[in-house]
């Protein structure tokens, strides 16, 4: 006899866990299926946890979740080959609880999150792959798994199966993702004694630093690098658009090796012991690449729904929020005794539209296109900025006025006045 649930959630990442937790807490009969060996085994992220999204779901998460360091300082670097120019923001306000952002190690964090889901009453089954959706005419009525006797039924299915969302693709809910809409990121975790990290980054206690990097490190490809401090390790990584890797024929690990050897980065990693290497796809197509988010008996959330704000390096908070909205939509409908039809599930879209999720994504909808078509943002500009700084700071008997003239002339020569103005205009339009 096949099992029947109120809701089946596919995937145990941030969106799936947020959905399953919210649903189970409301008393619904929830099954969560995860293909990995344990929740978190397939999940990769930088990883920064934004407290706000999780706080709305589990208000007291700070007391129990495995968190690494709360972030009190953000560094933004624009790198040339052997230099960087940057802006740092450090505030003691970020060092006062409740903290706003944390570095986390996802394997540990996801394990905790999944325990919360199970405690809330959801049935969580791992090592089980959903191979396809069971359909009754055009309505999703359940899932088929890869195990013998694997048909399971539900009133509604939430697809939280991550960036590739093979399930949604197979069901025809979206097409194959365009390589120009996904980034490939690689990262390493380097062990380092706590005292070394604290001395090297000017930190005390559980405070942490993040460094976001752009410029020559990505060799003209659209992307960024990052370095995060954990309790006893550093996370260092870089990500660029998949299509760029493809055309430039650069391997991601070589890019990371070169980045780690940069004279501004290498000393920070010195003496560390590499413990982990992971790679992951990030859906960065933005607003214009978001697929249809719901239909008869199904909803899609998190990475599977392309809900990533690449400009601000936000993803897991959008995932958790969307998972939570999907759950709330179902809870409302079940309370009103309404079916999970396309018409009724439109509330999910509305909730997303009314929130920061869609508002932010819409704001930057033109950004991916601009950066993609204008590689000067990743090559010429970093060089120009670094050289300008170098010129101004080097004391060599040349007067400052002449230096300013030379910098301006250099800018114009590298990128015509029209080019400079049109770039500024493009960015202004995109940020507006």
């Amino acid at each position: 006899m096949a099992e029947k649930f109120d809701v089946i959630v596919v995937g145990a990442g941030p969106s799936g866990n947020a959905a399953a937790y919210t649903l189970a807490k409301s008393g619904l009969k929830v099954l969560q299926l995860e293909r990995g060996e344990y929740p978190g085994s397939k999940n990769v992220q930088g990883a920064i946890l934004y407290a706000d999204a999780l706080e709305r779901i589990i208000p007291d998460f700070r007391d129990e979740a495995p968190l690494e360091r709360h972030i009190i300082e953000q560094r933004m670097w624009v790198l040339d080959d052997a230099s960087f120019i940057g802006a740092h923001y450090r505030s003691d306000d970020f060092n006062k609880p409740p903290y706003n952002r944390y570095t986390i190690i996802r394997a540990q964090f996801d394990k905790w999150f999944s325990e919360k889901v199970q405690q809330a009453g959801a049935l969580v089954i791992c090592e089980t792959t959903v191979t396809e959706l069971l359909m009754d005419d055009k309505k999703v009525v359940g899932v088929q798994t890869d195990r013998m006797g694997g048909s399971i039924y539900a009133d509604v299915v939430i697809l939280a199966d991550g960036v590739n969302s093979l399930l949604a693709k197979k069901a025809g809910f979206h097409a194959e993702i365009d390589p120009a809409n996904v980034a490939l990121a690689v990262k390493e975790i380097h062990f380092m004694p706590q005292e070394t990290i604290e001395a090297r980054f000017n930190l005390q206690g559980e405070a942490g630093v993040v460094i976001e990097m752009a410029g020559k490190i990505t060799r003209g490809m659209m992307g960024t690098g990052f370095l995060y401090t954990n309790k006893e390790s550093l996370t260092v990584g870089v990500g660029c658009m998949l299509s760029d890797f493809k055309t430039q024929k650069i391997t991601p690990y070589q890019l990371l090796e070169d980045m780690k050897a940069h004279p501004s980065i290498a000393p920070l990693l010195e003496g560390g012991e590499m413990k982990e290497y992971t790679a992951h796809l990030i859906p960065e197509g933005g607003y214009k690449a978001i697929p249809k988010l719901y239909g008869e008996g199904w909803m899609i959330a998190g990475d599977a729904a392309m809900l990533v704000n690449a400009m601000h390096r936000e993803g897991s908070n959008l995932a958790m929020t969307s998972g939570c909205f999907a759950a709330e939509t179902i809870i409302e409908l079940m309370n009103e005794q309404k079916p999970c039809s396309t018409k009724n599930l439109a509330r999910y879209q509305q909730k997303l539209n009314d929130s920061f999720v869609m508002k932010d994504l819409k704001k930057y909808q033109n950004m991916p296109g601009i950066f993609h078509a204008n590689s000067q943002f990743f090559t010429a500009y970093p060089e120009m900025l670094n050289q300008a700084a170098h010129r101004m700071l080097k004391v060599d008997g040349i007067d400052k006025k002449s230096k300013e003239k030379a910098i301006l002339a250099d800018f114009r020569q590298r990128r015509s006045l029209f080019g400079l103005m049109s770039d500024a205009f493009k960015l202004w339009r995109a940020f507006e």
Partner: protein
Amino acid sequence: MHIVVCIKQVPDSAQIRVHPVTNTIMRQGVPAIVNPYDLFSLEAALRLKDVHGGRITVISMGPPQAEIALKKCIAYGADEAILVTDRAFAGADTLATSFALAQAIRQIEKDMKVDMVFAGKQTIDGDTAQVGPGIAKRLNLQLLTYVAQIDAIDLEKNTIQVRRRAENGVQVLQTRLPCLITMLEGSNDMRYATMENMFRAARYATKIWNKDAAGIEDVNKIGLKGSPTLVSKVFAPKPLARRADIIDTESNDPRDIALTLVNKLFTQHPKLHDSLRSH
């Protein structure tokens, strides 16, 4: 037929990390798995149940989180799972562990007669291969280790015939039940759990036995007190400094490339050169 399978939860040694400063094993973030050798024994037991019917009880001594490993065995098809867990067991070596498990199996037997006990050949974290034989000795069971294949079981005559891997070949052995078997790695492939059993495991409430429930009265025989083994020092061996060289050659002729390589080898390892010369 009632089969008891003894299992242990171990850290996945493929992913284990040693803390570079304290030299202790960093268990945080390292997935815990069922000791891989135990799975060959569990599958052998499941195959016997497929043919002869009966019940399989899995048992483990360990910390509360070892319940996950037992549930996994339920998913594979075991009927019951018992976790023997008590702070008094902490620090147990193989002598104390085999005592505790033997006592627990005696308790299980009160419910239903045990025909066979399976254990893993050894664990991947301790590697002693002592607990299985220790249980057999204490329970006075016939002991069959390194079993590659179970040929036949005659439940009426209470006999079993197995093939056992020995140093010089294969022994075909026959003995009487009850017996304790440890299966050789590679002797079978663990089955893929059915959806029904996955559900059963997810909902299964593991039986949790403390030392009293396991029928243990003498605390001097369990835990640290019952363990004569002393760990005097734990250290991680220094990794060998291996260095990869890229050798540039001027020509692409295989003979030149080979010559460059051989020259380099002999320059770096003059002893090798001398020993080859003396031949």
